[in-house]
């Protein structure tokens, strides 16, 4: 069962949230960030090359031009592979765990899996970020030695940064799954 809706992130950019429910206890939330725009790419490339040409005009050394091309290419590859995140996915499976995947523009995927035994709860936290007050969804992890304490807070959708309305949707859905999980785990 799939569901796709448009939201916005904290800076006003456009985000798409896709919720998939594979079964009553397995749900997936996929937040897609806006892609790399041709306009910004052209702007950056032109700036770099103009600067290189200006230096070349001063120094009369053609190595500067080839170095500029090299730097632009490497910079673009590095940006696509290490910085630009296209999609962030949260997969929650009852009695197994929670998996967070970030896929980069170059196709690389970074996955983290947290076992359900370590998860205490999923909450929406408030934070002061520069001059803004933003909301973010995070997973609270239990301390293995003291189950009532929280040992770690893992934020979700860190680079997409959706707004509260999108987070509430995800939160409600996750709480349904977690409620079932808590009900089964407290019984002996």
């Amino acid at each position, binding site marked *: 069962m799939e569901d796709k809706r448009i939201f916005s992130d904290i800076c006003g950019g456009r985000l798409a949230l896709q919720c998939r429910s594979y079964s009553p206890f397995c749900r*997936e939330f996929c937040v897609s960030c806006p892609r790399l725009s041709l306009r910004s790419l052209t702007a950056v490339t032109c700036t770099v090359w103009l600067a290189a040409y200006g230096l070349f005009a001063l120094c009369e050394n053609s190595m500067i031009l080839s170095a500029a091309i090299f730097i632009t290419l490497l910079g673009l590859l590095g940006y696509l592979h290490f910085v630009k995140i296209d999609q962030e996915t949260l*997969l929650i499976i*009852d009695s*197994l765990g929670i*998996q967070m*995947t970030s896929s980069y523009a170059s196709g690389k995927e970074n996955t983290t899996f947290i076992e359900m035994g370590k998860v205490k709860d999923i909450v929406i936290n408030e934070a002061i970020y520069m001059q803004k007050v933003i909301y973010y969804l995070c997973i609270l992890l239990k301390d293995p030695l003291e189950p009532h304490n929280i040992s770690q807070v893992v934020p979700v959708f860190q680079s997409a940064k959706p707004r509260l309305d999108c987070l509430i949707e995800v939160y409600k859905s996750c709480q349904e799954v977690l409620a079932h999980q808590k009900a*089964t*785990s407290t019984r*002996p």
Partner: protein
Amino acid sequence: MDSQGPPASTIKSKAGSPQPVASRCIHQDCLSHVGWPQDCQPSCSSRSSCSESTSFLPSRVTGMVLKAFFPTCCTSADSGLLVGRWVPEQSSAVVLAVVHFPFIPIQVKELLAQVQQASRVSLAVLGTWCHRQQESEESLGHFLEGLGAIFSHEPWLQLCRERGSKFWSCKATHQQRPGTPGVSSEDHVMLIFYDQRKVLLSHLHSPTVLPDCQAGDATASAEGLAAIFDTVSRSEVLFCKNQFDEGPVRLSHWQSEGVEASILVELAKQASGPVCLLVACLLSLVSASGSCRLWKLWPLPFIASKLSTCEQLRHRLEHLTLVFSTQKAQSPAQLMRKANMLVSMLLDVALGLTLLSWLHSSNRIGQLANALIPMADHVAEELQHLLQWLMGAPAGLKMNRALDQVLGRFFLYHIHLWISYIHLMSPFIERILWHVGLSACLGLTVALSILSDILALLTFHIYCFYVYGARPKHSPYSAHVCRLYCLKICGLSSLWRLFRGKKWNVLRQRVDSCSYDLDQLFIGTLLFTILVFLLPTTALYYLVFTLLRLLVVTVQGLIHLLVDLINSLPLYSLGLRLCRPYRLAAGVKFHVLEHEAGRPLRLLMQINPLPYSSVVHTYRLPSSGCHPKHSWGSLCRKLFFGELIYPWKQRGDKQD
């Protein structure tokens, strides 16, 4: 094909005995551990308050989804029995192999008991696997259900697959208490496919898994994912039988097509025994000769502690001893360590031999030797110019003429001595360099350490100036060398305290007020004034020579950093991460496979490899301590107060 079993109750108890499944009464407060349901009735006290009156189950979490871990190699296997481990705490069934028809139940149970004894993993028959090749195999289904009576297991898993279909049907049934009417309850089942070979070979690096968890632990762990990995890796004994064996039981698992092995690996294993023995003997001879009494005569230990070459050689000897020791590695971590040391030593020797061949080609050594003397002369000349400049009016500052001349002449004399020493050595330089170049076959690190030591020896005069100008706390030099700057600073600080009427309390380690006599105050103030006016001169000399010394220390530090890098980088682990990423697992990742409503959920479990930074951090070899340990703050502090800066941390030196 199989004998009619004895009455049900006997079989159940027989099936119960090899499997240590702890059954607990589900009544909330009753803590009695029982072997079979009926035993609980008389002793259970809270039975009256308990609402659960129907099913009595062995300990598992009720309502939890049942997870069946199924190996991908068995998805196309013929129908048979599922054999594996049941983890009740997480309600997961780890299927290890499929037993095919025909089989005799007694023999299957014997095999499981054997494997359980060898691997200490509680194996059991978990259920049945039905792979329908044609449409008309209805009887197979009924037959398989009958097997549930022979091998009773709670819950009984029934997996079924149509030929060519992607979607499976799974059922997990629980037996009700005998005497209670009603259907057996079913659980939701979630299928998780895993690659058996990769999970077997991988080593899970999780924060919950203790790093020094020995392979010979009592029982397999039951904590989360570590349980799965543990189960598969310990059950290696089960995978030794393949379909070409003549055994009574036919199994299907990742090795059932034939046991995989590599000829090279087997040959290496056979050869490693005698080779290790031989090399261990040689190394023990070398270390015995190294620890004989001759080397303890002074000043040899003192020189040896200063030279980084001896440190490096000792470090390498330790590594070699560890790698070629005749003891087998106890844990995977130790094995990785040995492998890392071996690979890093091989790389070291290879780089050293490359350097050697480069040096000895086209008479580079001769060129180097010829260039050395003029370079030393040039450096000495520059230093003399510098001192002449300082003795005049450097940068327009006015120096105290007398002190200036004394210091300047003192240092000029030193330079003269040093240059004479270099000229004395000049005929032997080429020979020395040739022999030093030969040491590169021991490794690049040794050659670099020798280079650093030669640099230290050649700039010995700057070191002397620096030492004369500073005050070392643990200086090995004797007290007749005057340590101007720090002496001045110490004197100034105590006289400044006197000026203000205070004193340093050594007992309490703090500044206390003190009433001085008039003559003490008078002398103190006079001396203070003199020292203050002489400060610029000494400070300038100190500054110049400290800068030179820092330059030399920086170069030496860089060389030591490179040596340390070669020593401690875990190359084998990095290579393993590059070529066989599943061997080093940070965790797992799940991928949801194609799903149809009404069918059980299917997931694919893949191994999430460890990131490169974690690999380096976890498997980093301990360094020999030859690297700079100063933080910027302590460096500045030492510079200001005139303490000596060593580019390396000496072994056995006390902390400041």
